[in-house]
């Protein structure tokens, strides 16, 4: 089951952060189960089709949810406005716009209809993910244009054939995307979320390299030797036994990391430089307020990391000899994202992850586990 939550950009980010403030509302619940009853003719289809069907279902359901927005197209007269009572009790004429969509990278590919290993913000394909400069900006119109071209070229194609053709163009193969026809450019509205883009990326990739470079036992010993610090988690038992860390714990680990590895015989100047560049970048990206200056500094830090990160390939920590990692490529897009939609703390998935506990996990526990979806809705009403 997917849950879709909604909040307003009018509400300040401080209010939106705490879920107890009621700034979020559950908008839709979309099934995510498999297609067990449907049989496919060939082996290839049996393997590929369920994934495509899931994407199609996701877009069809959301198209229905977003349908009311289509009646609000910008026009010169006031017909596109609807009246609403604001928080102070005044009547206002409002215009709804889907401004931002918070999701992790995997879901961003789904929403935009892109194949994996492409970038939601620019046109980089897998081969270009480690390039120094960013490619041409991707727009929603461009994605829709490519889909239309394929549709014109193969008017009678089945959805499986369509997917094969779309995959060649770097798309996922869904023909009708849920945001088609909305005024907003979806590639701008998709936002970088700090939890997955910075902290999970750090945990998935960089921590693995560091562990390999320094050695697990040494890293544990260095972490446990750190002086006790109030206000952040202390890793006095080392880190190798930890699993399933939260965003906050990754952040605390990032805080400790630079002094922990400094001075170790395996931590060459380039290792330290790249890690320092990355940590500086992450902490600057998390600033609650940015200016053109801090954004420029942030990009400089990223450049230091980018220039020195190949050390992890040459010292054998990363066994694949390239840095074409979507999550790493995504980092410098932070700048345009902040300029377009405000700082990254507007778009953390953390409040939404907490909403799952109250809206979905607790609700599921209250059911008898049979035909639970209707029961969950009844529980939430």
């Amino acid at each position: 089951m997917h849950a879709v939550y909604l909040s307003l950009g009018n509400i300040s980010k401080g209010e939106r952060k705490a879920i107890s403030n009621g700034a979020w509302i559950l908008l839709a619940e979309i099934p995510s189960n498999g297609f067990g009853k449907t049989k496919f003719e060939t082996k290839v289809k049996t393997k590929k089709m369920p994934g495509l069907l899931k994407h199609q279902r996701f877009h069809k359901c959301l198209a229905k949810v977003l349908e009311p927005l289509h009646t609000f197209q910008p026009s010169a007269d006031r017909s596109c406005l609807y009246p609403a009572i604001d928080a102070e009790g005044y009547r206002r004429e409002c215009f709804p716009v889907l401004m931002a969509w918070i999701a992790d990278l995997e879901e961003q590919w789904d929403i935009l209809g892109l194949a994996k290993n492409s970038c939601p913000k620019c046109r980089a394909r897998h081969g270009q993910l480690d390039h120094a400069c960013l490619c041409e900006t991707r727009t929603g119109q461009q994605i829709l244009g490519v889909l239309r071209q394929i549709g014109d070229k193969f008017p009678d194609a089945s959805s499986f054939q369509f997917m094969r053709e779309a995959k060649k163009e770097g798309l996922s193969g869904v023909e009708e995307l849920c945001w088609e026809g909305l005024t907003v450019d979806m590639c701008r509205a998709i936002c970088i979320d700090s939890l997955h883009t910075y902290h999970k990326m750090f945990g998935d990739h960089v921590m693995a390299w560091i562990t390999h470079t320094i050695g697990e036992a040494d890293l544990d010993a260095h972490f446990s030797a750190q002086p006790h610090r109030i206000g952040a988690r202390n890793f006095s038992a080392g880190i190798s036994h930890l699993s399933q860390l939260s965003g906050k714990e990754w952040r605390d680990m990032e805080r400790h990391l630079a002094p922990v590895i400094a001075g170790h015989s395996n931590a060459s100047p380039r290792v330290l430089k790249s890690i320092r560049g990355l940590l500086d970048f992450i902490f600057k990206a998390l600033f609650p307020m940015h200016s053109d200056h801090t954004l420029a500094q942030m990009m400089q830090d990223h450049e230091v990391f980018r220039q020195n990160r190949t050390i992890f390939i040459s010292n054998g920590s990363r066994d694949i000899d390239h840095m074409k990692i979507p999550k790493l490529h995504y980092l410098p897009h932070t700048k345009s994202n902040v300029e377009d939609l405000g700082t990254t703390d507007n778009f953390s998935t953390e409040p939404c992850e907490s909403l799952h506990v109250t809206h979905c996990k607790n609700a599921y526990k209250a059911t008898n586990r049979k035909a639970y979806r209707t029961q969950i809705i009844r529980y939430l009403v």
Partner: protein
Amino acid sequence: MTLSFQTAKDMFARIQQHMPHGPAWKSSTVTLPDAPNEPQIFFYRDIIECVKFLFGNPKFRDSMVYEPYELYEEDGKTRVYHEMYTGKCWNELQVSCEGIDKRLTAAHMERNCIVKASRRRDGPINHIGI
């Protein structure tokens, strides 16, 4: 103490009836052409009703912003970003005539439209471990 309710059940019934709560749920079915035997049921609420519900919550009286702003540092050139309303997207979409602190550029002045907008953010679609 005299209470208007006698039992806990009575109290919850009153909360259900009299307290404001979110818009009603609807359900709909989607059938994919490639899986005709498996109609997919999903639940949703009217998106405009949801927006109105959040928009009118008196709790957010002091934290609501209805217009975009372009913020600059003291030098007047370095742009500052924090909330959504300082971003370029909102500023491009909505132009306010009564911008007090907002610096209007020439291009904005020409467009000169007044739209009171309510901006929407859509929440994430997250996987749930069920």
